[in-house]
């Protein structure tokens, strides 16, 4: 349409990962003319902000991703394949990609997500769809998308997503954390005593690195990620494929330690790569391409 060249469109992408993350991009003639990032602690604040934007510009499209456990990837668009995998075909919404594979999610989860917010959500994506959009390498590879509350795993075999899994990261109790801190103090004490005996500064730095690694291994979510990859790999080899995984790509949004690649390589013996994608921007891009 002729008018479309002159119309400003706002694309808002948001998701909840402990707090609410939002990106608003304003497009004119398919070019981004401005963008703004926001973080909200409360849902009310997010709703107020988005509602205001919708009132200001009726051409505002909101998009989000679905984090629920009742979603996944099937290596076909066929109903039979769904039934084979014991998925209730009638109660899932399916998005078929290139007539080769499909993403599905529970209809009830989608409805629940829409009802959760007091504004209309225009696009709802499976969290696996975001990985699929990002995935450039698609041969025997695992993508692990890390949020603060979720770990999403998607495995490709010969360009088709084969296996998917979601893990919700459990919040640790404060008491556990304190105990861990106490443990760490003990380690610190032992380290300190050993430091006293060592005069060489380089050795001190090395010990400090070891201390950091120890901290990560015991407290961070990196271990949780590692364990999740391990269990997923076991399941993958057991029920999905005989082909070996050649690479693991960590897509981090939570700010985990880059050293996780070393940890994975050491523990699982598969080459790993760390990437830091902008999920909000990808969600918006998916929506922009759909209009």
């Amino acid at each position: 349409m002729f008018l479309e060249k002159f119309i400003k469109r706002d694309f808002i992408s948001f998701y909840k990962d402990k707090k609410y993350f939002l990106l608003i991009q304003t497009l004119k003639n398919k070019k981004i003319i401005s963008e703004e990032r926001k973080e909200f602690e409360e849902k009310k604040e997010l709703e107020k902000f988005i509602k205001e934007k919708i009132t200001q510009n009726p051409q505002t499209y909101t998009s989000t991703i679905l984090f629920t456990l009742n979603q996944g990837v099937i290596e076909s668009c066929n109903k039979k394949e769904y039934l084979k995998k014991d998925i209730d075909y009638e109660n899932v919404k399916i998005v078929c990609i290139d007539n080769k594979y499909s993403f599905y999610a529970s209809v009830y989860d989608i409805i629940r997500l829409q009802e959760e917010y007091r504004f209309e959500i225009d696009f709802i994506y499976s969290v696996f769809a975001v990985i699929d959009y990002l995935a450039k390498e698609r041969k025997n590879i695992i993508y692990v998308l890390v949020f603060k509350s979720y770990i999403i795993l998607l495995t490709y075999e010969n360009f088709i997503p084969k296996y998917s899994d979601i893990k919700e990261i459990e919040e640790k109790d404060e008491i556990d954390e304190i105990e861990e801190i106490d443990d760490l103090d003990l380690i610190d004490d032992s380290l300190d005593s050993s430091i006293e005996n060592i005069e060489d500064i380089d050795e001190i730095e090395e010990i400090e690195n070891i201390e950091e690694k120890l901290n990560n291994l015991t407290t961070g979510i990196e271990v949780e990620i590692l364990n999740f990859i391990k269990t997923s790999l076991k399941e993958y080899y057991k029920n999905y494929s005989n082909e070996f995984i050649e690479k693991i790509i960590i897509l981090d949004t939570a700010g985990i330690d880059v050293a996780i690649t070393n940890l994975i390589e050491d523990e699982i013996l598969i080459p790993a790569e760390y990437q830091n994608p902008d999920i909000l921007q990808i969600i918006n891009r998916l929506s922009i391409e759909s209009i």
Partner: protein
Amino acid sequence: MRVYSFKIPKKKPIFKEDTKLWLIFIAISLLLYISFSLFLTFKAYILKKETKELNKKAYELKLKTMQLNEEKEFIYIQKSVFENIMIKNDLTKQQIKNLLDLIPDPITLEKFYIDKNKLTIYGITPTKDVYNLLMLPPLESIFEKTVTTFYKLPNGWYRFKSQNYIQSEENETY
């Protein structure tokens, strides 16, 4: 183009509700403005045409007025001529009446001619004295010059011819 979304968005309006209202108002006012300007153009065209026609009519009326003025002047002239004639006629009538009143009983008037400044009377008188006593004095009192010639008739009476001038003949030649 791959569509990943579980949901397809509804068609969204391009303009806000109040913008829509504004646009409608602007459209209506534009429409009114255009129709009014069209009406004015049409009216101006009609007025121009009427002006042209009225100018033409005014020119024609001017011509007619000129013609009527000419006619009026002609009528005035005619009227003055008529009035002159009437006055002259009245005068002549009066003169004839006066003349006839002048004629005494013993004298018989045969004929008379009235010119512009000359009166010629032909008649029969029993004697010259009768004429000179009864007829001549009034004539002389009216006219400047009076010339009378007598012809004796067989019965002893006189036929006379009296020529009376208001102005002398010399003056008349001028």
